[in-house]
């Protein structure tokens, strides 16, 4: 059995917060460059150039890519043969890392303690932690800061089974149209299909972690993703909503078993500053 000190987890989380908020993933840069080449709109091309330039400046100056350094969301896979030692729970250790990372890293604190009272907690905690047990003795922690602008444009519908595939497609495209310029297009559209109400939303969010340019392992969903991307990019919304071909860089779909009465579908919008980073032990 492997042992990890929770203090080490906090240290690594602190690093993830600062690094992920400053350095854009190579897959996102490659996707932006690819769509930049095919963009018909001159304004659209200019915006995509500025987004790419922003990524260079952020890395060079050790500055956050976006002022919205997000809600700190974590996806944790913890081996069943792993023992964590030290003070408190794994979630406590993650929160300590977030507080240090956001404070020492000059990242914006964007969390209010009570949604109606709306007083800032001051250190960007608490984080949202999704924990899953896996075989073995490893530990993988993925940090995915989530900006408010794109999160606000996310939607979920409890469709009827009779609505079927067409119903799902219509809901996705309708959600992108309603979102318009607001979620900072070009976006990545995370789609969850099936599960329960909350699990459907979880699947949508989790799909955003998949590498851009990767294919869904199941051919049916892989071609559904292609079709949805084409439909979304036919809206003309374009970069920043000012018109163009590049409304989304990708559509990712995650499906899950569901109840005989239900067909839930969730659309989680992700802005072009699609930040996530994983640490493993």
């Amino acid at each position, binding site marked *: 059995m492997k042992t990890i000190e929770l203090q080490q987890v906090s240290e690594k989380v602190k690093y993830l917060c600062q690094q992920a908020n400053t350095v854009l993933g190579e897959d996102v840069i490659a996707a932006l460059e690819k769509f930049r080449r095919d963009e018909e709109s001159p304004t659209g091309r200019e915006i995509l150039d500025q987004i790419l330039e922003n990524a260079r400046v952020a890395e060079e100056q050790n500055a956050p890519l976006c002022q919205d350094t997000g809600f700190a969301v974590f996806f944790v896979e913890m081996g069943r043969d792993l023992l964590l030692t030290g003070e408190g729970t794994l979630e406590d250790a993650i929160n300590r890392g977030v507080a240090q990372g956001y404070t020492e890293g000059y990242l914006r604190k964007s969390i209010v303690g009570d949604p109606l009272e709306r007083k800032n907690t001051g250190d960007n905690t608490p984080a949202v932690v999704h924990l899953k047990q896996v075989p073995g003795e490893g530990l993988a922690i993925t940090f995915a800061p989530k900006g408010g602008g794109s999160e606000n444009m996310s939607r979920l519908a409890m469709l009827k089974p009779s609505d079927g595939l067409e119903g799902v497609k219509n809901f996705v495209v309708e959600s992108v149209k309603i979102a318009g310029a607001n979620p900072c297009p070009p976006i990545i559209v995370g789609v969850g299909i099936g599960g329960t109400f909350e699990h459907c939303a979880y699947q949508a969010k989790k799909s955003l972690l998949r590498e851009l340019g990767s294919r869904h392992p199941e051919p049916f969903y892989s071609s559904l993703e292609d079709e949805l991307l084409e439909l979304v990019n036919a*809206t003309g919304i374009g970069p920043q909503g000012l018109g163009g071909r590049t409304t989304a860089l990708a559509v990712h779909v995650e499906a899950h078993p569901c109840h005989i009465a239900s067909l839930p579908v969730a659309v989680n919008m992700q802005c072009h500053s699609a930040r996530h980073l994983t640490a493993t032990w």
Partner: protein
Amino acid sequence: MDKIISLTPPLTNEVVLGLSAGDRVSFNGVLYTARDAAHKRLVALLDEGKPLPFDIRGQVIYYVGPTPARPGRVIGSAGPTTSYRMDAYTPALIGQGLKGMIGKGNRGEEVLEALKQGKAVYFAAVGGAGALISRCIVSSEIIAYEDLGPEAIRRVEVRDFRVVVANDAHGGDLFEEGISRYGRM
């Protein structure tokens, strides 16, 4: 279309009426920052008949909540936030003489109407380009609501801050134009 119009607030009605959706603009001069919580307080002051913490006549508000400045820097990353959240407060501020807003995303009907009635304009900056835009900000000073942290009102001075006219005072709408030009549905 490629001409860049340089603007320095305060803006006059004449300048505002000369702007059309799609115009490229470079701001040089003073802007005031405010987002959700600050807007709520500003409009509460108006409701109570009290003065605002700055003279809003002719001014331009930039919707931004920057990251903290690293030592030796003027400001942290400072890109635009989504504007529609300010829609409920905007007509009242335009009524007080506000002439421009810089943000990202679409505005609601009440704002589009207020732009026409009050002769004001809405500019779009590139959302998610916070590191790049921070280089245009040459000074920054908190002038109100320091307790709001990133949501405090700042007086910032900008040099060559590039934006585009999204909604003008004549009903011109660049978002609509974009969709009708590039949409294929």
